């Protein structure tokens, strides 16, 4: 048996009983999957992005399947932070799983206000600052495309909450190290990477973009090697822990992320295909540690041999 492996990790002040979370937007608010997955076994649940007010998201079609993944432009549909706290957090709090809330806005003040409202809410373990959603016109990626703008945002939010802060970085930047350092110096406790990669699909019969939003974000196994490289680079640039995501469909991709330098990982698109993927990943990491003589999962972090 592999029960003696210490699976716990500390993601910048977010205590996780194992290093496997689910990524924002791919697991709803946990309750949707409760009939298929024992949510309490997850290391953390990152819920869909919220801003101050409810937000309707984009018109349909919002997704299209592509080789090795999918392109989505959901557009951050959500109940607003008060709706999240009132309607959705009780289930996850009951499940006893740490909740990471993905937060977005169209101004520094909005991000900061949402963070302030989450401060001290039972069950909320941390904030993932969404500075990289490719699918909304204002906000999101506008704050993640310039390291100074992002640092200013992190600092502004930092003043309004004691919760661990974790900016979610965009993959399409010239140097991820610059953004990682800017976030860390501004007071981030951890980093999340990567968000989806901006992408587009055209229907050649109609000559129109397939997505109503025109463009979207690519996710799925196709983006995994891109994410591994960025996680590796970011982990060499900063000392704060990294939550890695991008194309995990089983234990191998997750372990790869940890070896590259991630403290924890998040399963995303794979939840749609096999909702038990996060549980398989937890078991796979445990088995890998036992097979390779690692007493603790956290020993995998940065274990790369170069």
């Amino acid at each position, binding site marked *: 048996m592999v029960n003696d492996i210490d699976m716990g990790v500390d993601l910048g002040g977010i205590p996780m009983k194992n290093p496997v979370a689910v990524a924002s*937007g*791919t697991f709803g608010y946990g309750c949707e999957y409760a009939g298929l997955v024992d949510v309490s076994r997850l290391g953390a649940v990152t819920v869909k992005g919220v801003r101050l007010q409810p937000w309707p998201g984009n018109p349909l079609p919002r997704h299209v399947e592509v080789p090795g993944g999918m392109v989505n432009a959901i557009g951050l549909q959500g109940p607003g932070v008060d709706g999240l706290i009132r309607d959705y957090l009780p289930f996850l709090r009951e499940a006893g799983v740490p909740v990471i809330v993905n937060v977005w806005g169209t101004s520094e003040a909005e991000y900061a206000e949402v963070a302030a409202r989450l401060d001290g809410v039972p069950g909320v373990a941390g904030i993932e600052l969404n500075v990289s959603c490719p699918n909304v016109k204002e906000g999101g990626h506008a704050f993640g495309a310039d390291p100074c703008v992002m640092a200013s945002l992190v600092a502004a939010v930092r003043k309004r909450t004691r919760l661990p802060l974790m900016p979610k970085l965009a993959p399409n930047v010239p140097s991820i190290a610059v953004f990682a350092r800017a976030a860390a110096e501004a007071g981030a406790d951890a980093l999340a990477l990567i968000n989806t990669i901006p992408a587009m699909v055209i229907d050649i019969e109609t000559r129109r973009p397939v997505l109503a939003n025109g463009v979207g974000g690519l996710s799925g196994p196709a983006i995994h090697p891109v994410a591994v490289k960025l996680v590796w680079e970011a982990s060499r640039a900063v000392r704060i822990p990294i939550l890695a995501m991008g194309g995990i469909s089983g234990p191998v991709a997750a372990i790869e992320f940890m070896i590259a330098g991630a403290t924890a990982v998040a399963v995303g698109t794979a939840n749609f295909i096999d*909702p038990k993927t996060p549980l398989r990943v937890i078991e796979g990491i445990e088995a890998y540690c036992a097979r390779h003589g690692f007493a603790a999962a956290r020993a995998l972090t940065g274990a790369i041999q170069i």
Partner: protein
Amino acid sequence: MIDCNARVIEQHRLTDDYLLLLLEAPAVTVSAHPGQFVHVRVTGLDDALLRRPFSIYGADHGVLALVYKTVGRGTEQLARLAGGDTVSVIGPLGNGFPLDCGDRMPVLVAGGYGVAPLSYLARRLGRRGVVLVGARSAADVLCVEDFTELEWDIRVSTQDGSRGERGLVTDLLDACLAAPSATPPEIYACGPDGMLRAVGERAGAAGARAWLSLDKHMVCGVGACLACVQRLRRADGTEWIGRVCHDGPVFEAREIVW
């Protein structure tokens, strides 16, 4: 909601483009209800990974029956499965049709393979009614014999006139609603959006209640991803955004904001 590997009992073609797939999935069938769907992961495709939703055609004696049309890579791969193969099935999902229509005559309106869940519904309604089967041409008319067995009043239309009346299934509905009747019928419909919208408008004009099963592309199937949303209206007139997979796929016509 069950997540299982279902064994293919058999699969055969109903016509050139339509197939009947029988799966051994007792855990899914035991709680299935007409109008619900299952989310199937088609194996054997390395680069296409999302599940495909299929309306339930039958769920008796542990056998899950699906009728589908080959429309793309996923369904073409599904069509290659043979007895003994397995597929991953999550279901039953969504909310089905209400079965209690009181003293009102059930009128089923089917467009294309939308007839499949309505055949299942007719078997569960436990009474006779009228079924209006619309299709593009004779080759797209499916499952009519199911209703013959149940001794339903069957009316068929095709757009090219190759079987039944020439025209749209809503023409059949117009004729049906024009017939004198003490109480308006209870309408159940499944088909493309344009047809459903037309059915809903006619039902509203006739003072009949209509239950429409929407066919939307889905990703998660359980309400988490927000890919298959639909604008809806509450009884008090306020609007909300529902998820077809979780809050539907069956909605009352007057709930839908087209």
